[in-house]
């Protein structure tokens, strides 16, 4: 038997393969308006932290893309940064040489992320478990090396700087206080969330979830599990690419770290922390992880790893299913 087969996410995601329960549907319906309201509230409450919050929103979109791959298609990957970074570099290079419109740049990033996911997904998605994990790592490492070598285009290890996007819609300039950046990122995340929800509820999304739970049955019913997975991988690549482009536009710089292994691993940590397979778990996990990271790093930059490590272990031991499962218990009235 093959040793390292995995059915990622089956453990931590609750079994909600069929119809969603009523409270869950209510919660899902409330998620988008709630996100918008909280995002705007944060804008007024923490006007000095817009830089950090913009990065959180960008990361949330990126983790959301990982949820599509992992939570809905069961593909365990440690290489999602390949798509994020490709989108970021594509948008950055376009901004330096070709166009300045931020919306066009997002589109460029999305297309680039989708294409790289499509190309590599076809190659690697025949593996499972540890093999797949290694393949995703290897692909991301190679993409990172390409970016490192193409110094003339990417700036190599110095980073790609000089990205100066034009005003949003021709009206709102990206200034150093980050107001435009923040609201733009919030709008993009909201749009991404709504589109992602459409996708996972579509027949295509449901079929992918079917593959995750029982590939043999999907094949028996005449579907092609591999083709479905590659398609979902590419779709998620578009999301990650847009997130990368958003990062390039709002920060004005792209570095090799945006393609790095630790950025991939962090995405996984944030997602599992929040809870896989529910989209808003991705957002919750990102906000929690990055806020905790920020606060701990600010008070004791030397040993934040200790706290974040304990935090992660605590989540696994006492909160399997991630932070989102807290909300499940709450709405269902279960006792922990």
């Amino acid at each position, binding site marked *: *038997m*093959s*040793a*390292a*087969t*995995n*059915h*990622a*996410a*089956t*453990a*931590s995601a609750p079994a909600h393969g069929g119809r969603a329960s009523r409270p869950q549907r209510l919660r899902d319906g409330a998620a988008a308006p709630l996100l918008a309201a909280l995002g705007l509230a944060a804008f007024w409450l923490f006007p000095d932290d817009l830089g950090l919050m913009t990065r959180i929103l960008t990361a949330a979109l990126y983790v959301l893309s990982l949820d599509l791959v992992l939570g809905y298609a069961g593909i*365990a990957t440690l290489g999602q940064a390949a798509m994020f970074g490709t989108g970021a570099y594509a948008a950055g290079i376009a901004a330096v040489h070709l166009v300045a419109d931020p919306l066009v740049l997002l589109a460029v990033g999305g297309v680039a992320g989708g294409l790289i996911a499509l190309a590599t997904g076809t*190659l*690697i998605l*025949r*593996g*499972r*478990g*540890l*093999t797949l*994990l*290694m*393949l995703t*790592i*290897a*692909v991301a*490492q*190679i993409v990172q*090396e390409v970016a490192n*070598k193409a110094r003339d285009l990417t700036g190599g290890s110095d980073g790609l700087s000089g990205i100066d996007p034009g005003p949003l819609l021709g009206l709102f300039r990206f200034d150093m206080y980050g107001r435009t950046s923040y609201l733009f990122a919030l709008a993009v995340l909201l749009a991404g969330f709504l589109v992602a929800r459409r996708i996972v509820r579509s027949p295509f999304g449901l079929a992918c979830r079917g593959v995750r739970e029982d590939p043999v049955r999907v094949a028996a019913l005449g579907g092609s599990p591999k083709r479905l997975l590659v398609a979902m991988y590419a779709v998620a690549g578009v999301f990650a690419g847009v997130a990368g482009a958003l990062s390039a536009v709002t920060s004005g710089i792209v570095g090799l770290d945006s393609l790095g*292994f*630790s950025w991939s*691993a962090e995405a*996984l*940590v944030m997602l*599992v*922390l929040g809870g*896989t397979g529910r989209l808003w778990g991705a957002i919750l996990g990102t906000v929690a992880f990055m806020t905790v990271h920020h606060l701990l790093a600010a008070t004791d930059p*030397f*040993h934040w*790893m*200790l706290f*974040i*490590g*304990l*935090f*992660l*272990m605590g*989540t*696994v*031991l006492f909160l*399997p299913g991630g932070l989102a499962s807290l909300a499940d218990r709450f709405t269902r009235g279960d006792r922990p």
Partner: protein
Amino acid sequence: METLFGIAVDGVAYGMILFIISVGLSVTLGLMRVVNLAHGAFAMVAGYVASFAAQGLGLPYAAALAGAVLLTVVATLPLERLLYRRIYGQANELAQVLLTIGLTFVIVAGINYLFGPTLKRIPLPEPLQGTLALGPKAIPTHRAFVIAVGVATILALWWLLERTDFGIRLRAAVDDPDMAAALGIRTERLYAATFALGTGLAALGGVLGAELLPLEPYYAIRYIVLFLAVVAVGGAGSIAGSAAAALALGVVDTAGKYLIPNFGEFFFYATLILILFRWPHGFFRGRAA
């Protein structure tokens, strides 16, 4: 010719270190189905213990090595009981990744707190310093020693798994855990023993390999991808597979750096992709031994 021989010797020595550390990961992944990302952290802990024993306490190399392996095994056994036992089994893969990453972070922070962020060395004893003439090439004595220990480890593991009662039960449990339990094999104790074996091997590799994989707090995170690559290529739970994979990757990496140093990383990862594409389940399809 001399160059070819040189690459082969360097590659094999590098591969042996990868093998000694990775085979422990392979065994625990094969039996308990646990993706233990803290494996590299265990190797690192042993390295630091040995470094402290040799430099701080002035113990001889052999004693530092033995002490470090023993102490690491003893120190990690409670972890097996308290943490790992909850996450055995393939259904828990994500929980495993998260828990062991968390554990790795804690260990990294702890090592950083105790020993500081600077490099630590394990001073080599007199006989292991210097070089050894091996045909046309002079190789560091330490590397020759590492190769010898690697070969001994392969033989010892083979003997352990094929010729002892423990090995028979272990292989039975890997092939069919339920059946093994039904036959009265006490899987709990077996798991603990296997975990100790895996940690011990990591510790051994961590100490021996300190010259090639230098000891610093980020060791635990820096090299784990390398160890996972060996296990993926070799097939989880396969000793012969791990050996073949570690040697192949060691030689490929060495040759790549020699021939095209500017594209060394490409070469390594491209080979990895090709191998995994051709043998998605690893060289030996993952069985114990």
